[in-house]
């Protein structure tokens, strides 16, 4: 356990500064966009979840997510290309799968930090929105909604995928999240081990992620009950990616 904890800290030390910068940028940029949107007077009567979407804050999150994906890929590559530290790690008296899992867990935590930043940003944005709305009265009615932040998290398609409030949706989001982290790492391992045919699995996983996202976005209007099936498939493909990654690492196929 101590060994894996040492590895986790080792991995995180290489990433935390960039991750912090990305997350701070996310919070600041989203607040700026919300304030700019509130400058347009009719938007002050808009619901927070719709204002959030209209402001472009969701795009900021997506950009940060892609940056983080790039950072995770870079983190693995840098071990092989720049510092070649992975070879040093493999000489340590620790099982190779420890190295693999330490990276995987570190990547997952980086994504979790981004999600946490999004929660903080949404709460801060709602505070700004309430501040602007506090004095708004029209025809004797106030524009501020009761329990507005909760409703925003419940009603926003974006937040419903990122932070669902139901078990089925939560499992689906967890499956998406785990699959993304595993697939990114698996793609790098496949490339490093020159197993290019295995990219079919990577493409399949990414397609499943995209399909699941589209399905989740339309889940309240489309017929069908695939959410659990999709979650299971995503979990299974993620498990396969982990299993195959470990197989390749143990076989020393990764160069």
């Amino acid at each position, binding site marked *: 356990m101590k060994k894996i*904890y040492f590895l*986790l*800290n080792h*991995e*995180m*030390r290489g990433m*935390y500064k960039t*991750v*912090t910068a990305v997350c701070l940028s996310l919070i600041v940029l989203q607040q700026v966009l919300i304030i700019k949107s509130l400058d347009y*007077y*009719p938007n*002050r*009567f*808009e*619901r927070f979840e*719709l204002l959030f979407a209209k402001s472009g804050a969701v795009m900021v999150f997506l950009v940060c997510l892609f940056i983080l994906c790039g950072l995770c890929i870079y983190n693995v590559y840098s071990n092989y290309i720049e510092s070649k530290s992975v070879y040093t790690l493999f000489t340590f008296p620790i099982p190779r799968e420890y190295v693999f899992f330490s990276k995987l867990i*570190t990547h997952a*935590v980086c994504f*979790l*930090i981004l*999600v*946490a930043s999004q*929660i*903080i940003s949404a709460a801060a944005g709602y505070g700004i929105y309430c501040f602007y709305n506090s004095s708004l009265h*029209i*025809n*004797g*009615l*106030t*524009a*501020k*909604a*009761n*329990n*507005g*932040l*909760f409703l925003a*998290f*419940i*009603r926003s398609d974006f937040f*419903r995928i990122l*932070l*669902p*409030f*139901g078990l*089925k*949706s939560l499992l689906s989001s967890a499956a998406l999240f785990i699959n993304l982290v595993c697939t990114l790492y698996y793609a790098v391992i496949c490339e490093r081990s020159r197993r290019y045919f295995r990219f079919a699995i990577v493409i399949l996983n990414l397609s499943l992620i995209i399909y699941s996202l589209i399905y989740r976005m339309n*889940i*309240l*209007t*489309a*017929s069908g*009950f695939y*959410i659990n099936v999709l979650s299971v498939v995503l979990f299974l493909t993620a498990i396969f990616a982990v299993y195959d990654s470990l197989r390749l690492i143990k076989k020393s196929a990764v160069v």
Partner: protein
Amino acid sequence: MNRLRKNIFLVVSIPAILAVMCFYIFMAAAKDNSVLYIHDLEGDRKVLTGITISGFLEDRYHGRYFEIKNGTLNSRFIYYQQKNDISGPEDYKNLVNGFMHNEFLYTYNYDYEISPGAPRKEIAREDSHAAGNAFVRKSSVYTDSVDIYLRISKRYADFSNPDLSTVYFSPGLYFKSSGKDIEFYKDEYIVSEGTPPNTIYTLVRSSFPAVLPELAFTVLNDDLYFTIVCTKEYSGRNGIYKAVSFDPWWQNSKYLGTVETITDFDLDSTNMDFLGLEAVDNKLVLLLFENNIFKARLYNTDGRLLDELAITGISYGEKLPYCQGFVHDGYLNVFLKYTDENQYNQITLLSIHTENGKLNLKHKFSEISSNELYPYSIIAKDNMLYTIALVKDKDETKKYYNDIFTPGHFMIYAYKTENDSTFAAYTGELVTDAVDDYNRNLYFIDTSFGHNFYDYRQFRSVDVKVDENQG
């Protein structure tokens, strides 16, 4: 500092995990923070003892199931995760021109044709070309007599099957204008010289001097019964009909399906306005005005008149009152609404009990209201009558852009009947914060991407039941 760097994984991961945990704790705590309580406006809530009012306050993302049992409110939050979690889409109770029974949706429309032998006056309009370069000769035809044909379409309510079965028949109903000419657009599509033109007549509705007919449906033992809702200005025949079978719409014959006449009336020798048809206690109740007196007539399915109940004091003008029936346990509760020339609504609630082939008037309550009232349910229990309705305040409507974008109030009314007199015993409102959803319409309305009612919390699947144990 060095210690922090050594444990950097925990330093960054613990706050992230805490933030996500705090989020879920906040969500769990906030899910019941919505406003939902009963505000007693008039009378004692004890009169609600013995009934259970239930329903959903929902948008397409979440709902709150509520139940008012013996005057006590309970509710629970529901997070919608898939389409069939939403209660609303199955809620086809008040369709404008339709009726849903089991998995089928029945819709109707009328065709209007110039009566054979009626005088015609044709005035040419500007000709044009249609698709396929067909030449269209256009004219207006003026007449004074119009025959009315009814089409009822039957389809699966979930649109799962494109099969569209149809009944198309003529009850023998027509309208004869005594003064103003009725205009039809006549379009003759001429594809080539020598071939007979395809002629289409379209009624110009604005030239029709009477209120156009509607249809009242009801289902008894899985059979569809109907009557044509029309005023006494119409002539010919109307009655109670049963749709025996439906034919595919593409079948090459003018009349489709089989219709059985249960009973019919000669409108030329009577003075009848037909309002509605309901199935109660395995019998049919026809609601009508005869010689301007409201009547409920009880028929069996063979068309035999079993009983008639005349109720005085219900007035109406040129238009028939809006009529909606609610049936339970041998009771037919009728909601009648007529908007007078001063834009006030004259509302009448009737509760008619059917027992052993006899009709008895149990409750009758009338009032004049400036508000719009849309009943979810009306239920009778002993000497009490309960109405659950959505009410839109006309003054409140002025604050919003229009009636559609104005929130409604969920109202509970209880009436008591003593010594043949019915009076209001209780008025209460189920107060919610769903009104906040309409705040976005206070300043302006953006419908550039359409308007979805399911973005607004609304009351759905409202049901009222009599508690048998306490009844």
